[in-house]
């Protein structure tokens, strides 16, 4: 579909910056023109990225559409872009949701529109860069660079406690990524001094002939995992999330939930597992337990929220717990479920934030107690709200079901206790979501202000319809998406297990030679090899 030397990934990544340049040239009073340019840029970018879904070869796990140019050759830093089945889906998720989020801000953002749209487009470049970078330093550059557009989006256009929320968000993320930078440099020197190849190239580091000793792997894994766990966020690093979500403007919450949180999980998939497979298995019990605590804790916190937006925020903690649990099963079902759930969460939680934003624009409150009986007043809104709510719960027929089912299946195979505990999260999700939904939508219209609410306008319908279409599409026919990530996932499990084997052999040798090492818990991963 693309000629092989066309730098499609760079085009997609930097296209939003062209939109930024165009917006800079528009007078800040011309709000309409600024909005249109921003929306068109994001929409065109989506159209550019969509062919990737079909052009990305599902039969290979190798990186495709690669672009490789030396950046700082002395240190082996290169400008290396490429995607596989996993990152391709993340790229399309990003380009798909960005125009919707921008469109959704037409109504809510009325001040400093120029700065807002510029921040949003820069944010898109940063997010896409994270998903397509295959050089550790390049990845780090985008990882940090996208922090500051978000800082301004929350801090300038957010709610009453926006300053606290945004500073907390930035400081949490920075602490994690600062230690990751050290780990990256350390990994580089470790590899360089043992193989004499100076490189930050992920592919080369992954296939390096030098097996990292387990005790060092543990440290490196911990440093990377901290950065990613804060981003996911995993319990107990989640405390920035409810603040940031609640205070961010609607579109900010959508992108935060749909894409930024995925970067954490993506980081685990792309960097932590392939680079430090043995440490990953050592950490599996800890991470799985934290994930389960997150699932249950998030659900219980969501249960008691009075504000719809913070309810959705805590439900994110719970959902991302599922994602992490799925990834750390190390079997194909769990991983596929985890990745699919990343996309699902983007669609359904993104949709919920959009819904909450639309509600807030009408009533200027998000308190559950202020609503009731909306089904009679705003029927179309209520139907769409319901579909998205059910998708978030994971009702069969919607996308959420497929993801959660696969995760639980994977978890069941690797550790039955985990699966049983996690399954309670599904039940709790139904309880808190449906209870909230019931209080907002059903019953009598007992507040006078609610009687005159307007139903969705055309713009709002057009924003929600693509999401709803996807909810059903993935729910009924997930195969196109699953098949595209399948080879990459298989490859990932193979890498993890193959390195296991090597380490296992080393382990035996070391024991024979009289240097006992920590016992390697193989979990059940080895058994999955033949699947």
């Amino acid at each position, binding site marked *: 579909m693309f000629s092989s030397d066309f730098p499609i990934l760079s085009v997609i990544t930097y296209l939003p910056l062209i939109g930024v340049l165009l917006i800079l040239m528009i007078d800040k009073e011309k709000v309409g023109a600024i909005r249109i340019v921003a929306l068109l840029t994001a929409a065109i970018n989506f159209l550019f990225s969509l062919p990737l879904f079909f052009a990305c070869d599902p039969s290979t796990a190798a990186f495709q559409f690669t672009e490789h140019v030396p*950046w700082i050759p002395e240190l082996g830093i290169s400008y290396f872009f490429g995607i596989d089945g996993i990152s391709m889906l993340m790229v399309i998720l990003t380009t798909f949701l960005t125009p919707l989020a921008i469109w959704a801000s037409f109504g809510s953002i009325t001040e400093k529109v120029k700065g807002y749209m510029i921040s949003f487009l820069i944010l898109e470049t940063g997010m896409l860069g994270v998903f397509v970078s295959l050089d550790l330093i390049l990845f*780090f550059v985008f990882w940090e660079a996208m922090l*500051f557009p978000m800082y301004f989006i929350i*801090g300038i256009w957010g709610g009453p406690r926006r300053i606290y929320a945004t500073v907390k968000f930035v400081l949490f993320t920075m602490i994690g990524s600062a230690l990751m930078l050290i780990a990256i440099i350390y990994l580089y020197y470790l590899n360089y001094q043992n193989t004499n190849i100076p490189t930050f190239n992920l592919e080369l580091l992954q296939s390096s002939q030098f097996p990292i000793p387990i005790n060092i792997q543990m440290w490196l894994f911990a440093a990377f995992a901290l950065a990613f766990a804060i981003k996911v966020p995993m319990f107990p690093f989640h405390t920035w999330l409810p603040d940031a979500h609640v205070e961010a403007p609607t579109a900010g919450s959508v992108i935060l939930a749909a894409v930024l949180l995925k970067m954490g999980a993506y980081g685990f998939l792309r960097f932590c597992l392939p680079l430090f497979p043995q440490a990953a298995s050592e950490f599996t019990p800890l991470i799985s337990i934290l994930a389960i605590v997150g699932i249950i804790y998030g659900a219980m916190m969501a249960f008691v929220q009075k504000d719809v937006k913070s309810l959705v925020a805590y439900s994110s903690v719970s959902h991302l717990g599922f994602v992490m649990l799925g990834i750390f099963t190390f079997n194909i079902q769990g991983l596929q479920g985890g990745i699919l759930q990343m996309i699902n969460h983007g669609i359904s939680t993104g949709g919920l934030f959009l819904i909450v934003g639309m509600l807030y624009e009408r009533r200027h409150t998000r308190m559950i107690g202020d609503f009731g009986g909306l089904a009679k007043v705003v029927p179309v809104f209520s139907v769409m709200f319901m579909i998205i709510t059910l998708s978030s719960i994971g009702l069969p027929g919607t996308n959420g079901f497929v993801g959660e089912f696969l995760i639980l299946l994977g978890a069941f195979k690797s550790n039955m206790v985990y699966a049983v505990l996690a399954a309670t999260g599904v039940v709790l999700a139904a309880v808190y979501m449906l209870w909230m939904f019931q209080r907002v939508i059903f019953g009598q219209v007992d507040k006078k202000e609610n009687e005159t609410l307007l139903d969705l306008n055309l713009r709002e319908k057009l924003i929600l319809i693509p999401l709803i279409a996807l909810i059903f599409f993935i729910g009924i026919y997930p195969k196109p998406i699953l098949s595209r990530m399948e080879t990459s996932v298989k490859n990932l499990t193979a890498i993890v297990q193959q390195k296991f084997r090597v380490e296992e052999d080393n382990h035996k040798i070391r024991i024979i030679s009289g240097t006992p090492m920590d016992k390697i818990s193989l979990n059940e991963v080895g058994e999955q090899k033949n699947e």
Partner: protein
Amino acid sequence: MQIELSLLSPQLFLLLWAILVFVVDFFTAERNKASLAYLSIIGLVLTAIISISSKQGETFGGSFRADTFGLSFNIIFLGSAILTVASAVDYVKAHLKHQGEFYGLILLSTVGMMFLSASGDLLTLYVSLELATISLFVLAAYMKSDLKSTEAGLKYLILGAASSAILLYGISLLYGISGTLVLDAIALKLSQMPTVGPLFILSIVMIIAGLSFKLAAVPFHMWCPDVYEGAPTPVTAYLSVASKAAGLAALIRIFFKSLASTSMQWVPLLMAISAMAMILGNVVAVRQHNIKRLLAYSSIAQIGYILVGFIAVSELAVTSIILYVLAYMFANIGAFMVVIAFYNVSGSDDIMAYAGLSKRSPFLAISMVVFLLSLVGIPPMAGFIGKFYLFSAAIEKGYYWIVVLGVLTSVISLYYYMSIAYQMYFKTGDDDSPVRVSPTMAVALVVALAGTLLIGVYTQPVLSAISGASSAFF
């Protein structure tokens, strides 16, 4: 002894040009004094061209050496001076008397620094350091009627003189031990000595103490916030970059050349200084209300980061320090430019006064954010690549905990730098009038912005230009 004066041509040219500025000053009417700034800039640019094109070598029996290392630092000194003078035009016109001398003194100080970075023996090094610093004493106290400025000048003079005396004492001890002042010869002598005695340790401690004063490294930083606050802001900008770079050039010349074989003795000391500077600078900066004091403490912390690279004592250490100081030059002088431009209009250095600046001047506000992010080390700004190199140098040699400290204190620095962004973007001030930026200042700001962003994204040309710098030592 063959003396090749042509090697000194950049230094001599700038010296003559400084005298030219003093002379032209006599014949310039008061209202035209700003033209002297442009005359100075022309001289500085010409000197930079001469520096780059003149040949390398050593003369005066190794006392003077023109090499890539010296050239790299010369470019940093000249760049700082150019940016400082360009940003000072309006400020000097509005607030200072004797404008001509102001520019002349900056040029003279730059001459001193250029001799310093080229010095091959301890005496040349000491004398050029004094030449650089004495001009700065005068400049710090340039607002004679202002109490804070005179206090700054006096503090700087007394403490500076004391520290110079300590440095000189250290140098004389080293001379006593090795019997020579030439850096190469000292290295040779020391390598022949089986052990080092307490006298040697004493001399090293004194040299470090004396130079740490110039760097404003903890615990020799006491003067720094007061002097930075009191001195005219362009002088502060120049002090915070060029003067520190000069101290670093001296430190590298002495320690990497003469004392590299004894690095076991002094690396722990510098590591401690680095750690203290990072902690104290960053923690105390959090509580500052005056932007010049905040930048003073941040500059103390920045020296801490640079010393993280320094303790590696390797080729990468030299490269990383030059790269970082270059990035620091654009970002720090850039930040001070915004401070000057804002002061010219508002007359205030209070951070609270920056409220709503994003509305009053979007250009100044976004420039400030870029400079501050570069100081934190956020990609794609130059500061990131610089810090990345510094930390890489330390990790290569296995100094992990200091790097961990470095990145964690960087997170603290993010907090207080962002508190300025917070005022500019999230707060609205009482005053809504636009802040006008003069054309000269705007050009200087664009240059600093371009430097900050370009070095961050396209580092390769800079790296290849300074790649030969470490060959003077390793």
